[in-house]
């Protein structure tokens, strides 16, 4: 249903061709499109309005360079402004204090319990912390069990108090327990609550007052609509939280709520939830979010992301290999991993100009590479080096080892040889071919 903003802008700027700079008259229609796109992306009505006014001021009088079209220039202004609003820099979680106490708050169903466990997992595995999870949701049926199960999954102790209906008491006891058992971090999960539920808001304010957390994180569903401003403001008024967690970003929401919240409470977004698995947690990238809200193809961003991930030396080696026709399954695997690191495949492909439109109605699964990886992992090092070794019995063994079928292995080998062919063509601009390859992957 969404049309990329860049496409819309290109269209509305067609009439601009031949004009030297952006003027009040020619910008009006475009700004209307920008505003509509923002509202469609769930950015708060008022913030969308303010935003377009700022963009207008910045855009007026800008000279249109011959190198970029007016549409592209406008897209750049909108994007830069949006990224700026999102907060230019990443902000880390505050882990001062021993133990550092982290309080989790938010509406019902925003994903607090899942996030608490993911954060515990992140702090344990990435920061080497001893973490204690605290089950402070004493209301929702089985909420405590849920945290217990997740705690077990990530190997983190969960503090519970059976039968207690007093989250303040539980939190205090948990901290005492954390001190005794030499934990560095205490994460307090709490019940979901509505911002207008006075009793429940008093309760979480009391928890804050009693445990004096070093970090209060407000967890919000990235699919939230216009209400995001009200809720974020109400929670911030009561808790003065330190950061925001945006959950369920692996959906296809534009996530305009991120912009609304950022603007209304001026607190950084620190984490994003990107899946149901315990490691599906990422730090927040303002610029990526700006792209997402606008749904725009941005070749600059693609280049930046590619630079981030591809080692230049690595790339030179690969190029030599491709030229000499020595591209093998190890390289293929590496490529897949690099693509995966860059993020959602569809988003990525959408950044290639012209591809966005072509991909609009296609579906590419995030785990499209899973089967491929399994097959390659089931090959011996020699087979990965030299795909020509793959005879019938080897393929049969690989199929068994990877839990796939010979048909799938055959298909991959065929895809692989096509890919290496394609890679040689890429320098000559083989976009069509790449499209076909993506389609094949999708059909698997």
């Amino acid at each position, binding site marked *: *249903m969404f049309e990329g903003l860049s496409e819309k802008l290109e269209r509305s700027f067609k009439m601009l061709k031949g004009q030297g700079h952006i003027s009040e008259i020619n910008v009006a229609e475009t700004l209307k499109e920008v505003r*509509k796109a923002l*509202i*469609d*992306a*769930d950015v*708060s*009505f*008022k913030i969308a309005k303010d935003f377009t006014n700022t963009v207008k001021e910045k855009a007026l009088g800008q000279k249109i360079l011959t190198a970029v079209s007016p549409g592209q220039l406008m897209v750049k202004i909108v994007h830069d402004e949006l990224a700026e609003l999102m907060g230019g820099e990443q902000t880390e979680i505050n882990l001062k204090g021993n133990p550092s106490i982290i309080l989790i708050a938010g*509406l*019902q*169903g*925003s*994903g607090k319990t899942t996030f608490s466990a993911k954060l515990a997992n992140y702090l344990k595995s990435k920061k080497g912390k001893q973490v204690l999870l605290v089950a402070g949701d004493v*209301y*929702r*049926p*089985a*909420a405590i*069990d*849920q*945290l*217990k*199960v*997740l705690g077990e*999954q990530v190997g983190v102790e969960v503090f519970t108090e059976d039968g207690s209906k007093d989250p303040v008491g539980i939190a205090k006891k948990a901290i005492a327990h954390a001190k005794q058992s030499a934990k560095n971090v205490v994460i307090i999960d709490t019940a979901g609550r*509505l*911002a*207008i539920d006075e009793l429940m808001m008093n309760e979480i304010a009391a928890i804050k007052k009693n445990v004096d957390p070093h970090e209060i994180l407000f967890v919000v*569903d990235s*699919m*939230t*609509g*216009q*209400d*995001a401003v*009200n*809720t974020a403001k*109400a929670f911030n008024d009561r808790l003065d939280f330190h950061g925001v967690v945006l959950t*369920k970003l*692996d*959906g*296809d*929401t*534009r996530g*305009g*709520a991120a912009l609304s919240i950022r603007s209304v409470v001026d607190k950084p977004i620190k984490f994003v939830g990107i899946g*149901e698995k315990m490691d599906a947690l990422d730090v927040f990238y303002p610029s990526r979010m700006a792209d997402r809200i606008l749904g725009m193809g941005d070749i600059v961003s693609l280049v930046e992301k590619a630079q981030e991930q591809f080692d230049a030396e690595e790339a030179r080696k690969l190029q030599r290999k491709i030229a000499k026709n020595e591209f093998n399954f190890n390289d293929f695997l590496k490529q897949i991993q690099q693509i995966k690191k860059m993020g959602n495949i569809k988003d990525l492909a959408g950044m290639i100009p012209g591809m966005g439109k072509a991909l609009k109605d296609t*579906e590419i*699964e*995030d*785990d499209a590479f899973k089967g491929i990886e399994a097959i390659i992992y089931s090959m011996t090092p020699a087979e990965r080096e030299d795909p020509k070794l793959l005879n019938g019995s080897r393929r049969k063994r690989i199929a068994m080892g990877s839990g796939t079928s010979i048909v799938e292995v055959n298909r991959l080998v065929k895809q692989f040889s096509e890919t290496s062919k394609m890679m040689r063509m890429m320098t000559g601009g083989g976009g069509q071919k790449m499209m076909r390859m993506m389609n094949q992957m999708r059909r698997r």
Partner: protein
Amino acid sequence: MGIFSFFSKDKKQDLDKGLEKTRSSVFGKLSKAIAGKSKVDDEVLDQLEEILVTSDVGVHTTLKIIERIEARVARDKYLGTSELNSILKEEIVELLQENNSGDGTDFDIPAGIKPYVIMVVGVNGVGKTTTIGKLAYNFKKAGKKVVLGAADTFRAAAVDQLKIWGQRVDVPVVAQTMGSDPASVAFDTVKSAVSQQADVVIIDTAGRLHNKINLMKELTKIKTVMQKVIADAPHEILLVLDASTGQNAIEQARQFTAATEVNALALTKLDGTAKGGVVIGISDQFKIPVKYIGIGERMEDLQLFDRKLFVESLFD
């Protein structure tokens, strides 16, 4: 209360309580926008746009409503404050009515279908399990024999959560261990309901984001497997939507409908500050009636959606 007299006073008060915030923050503004004006001008329409958009009605539906009002203004030439107010109400009610939203008058099931199988679907955290608990309570209160199926075998403790609801409401819950095949749980539940001669079966499913193709396929499978026991089951596929969700709810409706032919909607968490305008948008674009609304955490906090009462409560 006239035509709303079948609603007990309590019910109306509960809904009023839930919608109080909506009324004062959103449609209250409209009264202000219209107050003191003798006819509809661009400024009023602009304000109308703001009001609808900030209620999550969405650009598309907002423009549609405004077009309808503009057409009437052009036809009727002069429109006063009170006229515009009632026209806006009428237009929204009509949009809902076109899709039979709020046609239900009781927690009842169609005659001749036994057991009536309801499958509940939705994205993560919208309140599927809670809604099922409340539905079970209401059906039971209406004298029906209810069986619940814990087919959310994925989310940690989801089975326990449904079991607790089962105890609260005193209805049996069919469950297997966590991680087991949800389709198999659904199959067992329907089978057990048939042998127990139950009237209503409600199947809980794991929350899933609608863009996860494999998980959506799983829903299709759950549905198909139930048909091995009862050929036309599930009779009702209830998509649960969170009132605080923005325009993505439309995409949710689209994808879940594509995977499972959703034929009823429940809108939850209407007791918060969220406006619930998403219902209008979805009813406009999909021909699916809104059946239930959730307005709190207690088991009594589920109501049949009533379009007129809903719109009336917004404007009271």
